[in-house]
């Protein structure tokens, strides 16, 4: 369904996102520290609200490592601290 974000080596999981944060906000935030290749920011199909997490894909695994080090527990959006972790293959797939 979404082939643009599928490489776990270059993708980070971002958690604890306030539902009012937009995809644009996430792009603007992460492009500050590395070029962003893609973002998957799922919405609840019924409620049409964001579910509090996103996958942000970068171009290299080096960028990915760097972003995790730099951004985990660093930024607060609407008073919620963003958690940034390595994405695992299962999470970044569409099956859930």
């Amino acid at each position, binding site marked *: 369904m979404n082939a643009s974000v599928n490489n776990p080596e270059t993708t980070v999981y971002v958690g604890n996102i*306030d539902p009012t944060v937009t995809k644009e906000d996430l792009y603007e935030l992460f492009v500050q520290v590395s070029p962003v*290749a893609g973002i998957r920011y799922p919405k609840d199909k019924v409620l049409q609200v964001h579910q509090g997490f996103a996958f942000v894909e970068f171009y*290299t695994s080096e*960028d990915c490592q760097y972003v995790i080090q*730099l*951004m985990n527990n660093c930024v607060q959006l609407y008073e919620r601290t963003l958690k940034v972790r390595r994405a695992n293959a299962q999470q970044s797939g569409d099956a859930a």
Partner: protein
Amino acid sequence: EALWKRYRDQKRPGRISSKLRQAMGLSEGQLPPWCTKMKTVGLPPSYPDLKIAGLNWDIENLRGEVYGTLKGPGATKTT
């Protein structure tokens, strides 16, 4: 998609819009929280030319929405 292209054109490292600043609780002319961490973690590997006010750029440059700048070949990295 068109939306993504617009992001790419409008969002630049070194500038944070007032909307995002508000979400972060960061006022204009204030350095974002990751900048202090860059002192220990280092500068972004994909932005070798990134300049950040107070780090490797004159602190005087810190004003309004701008806290850094990116010039040179690293600025236009695409797929």
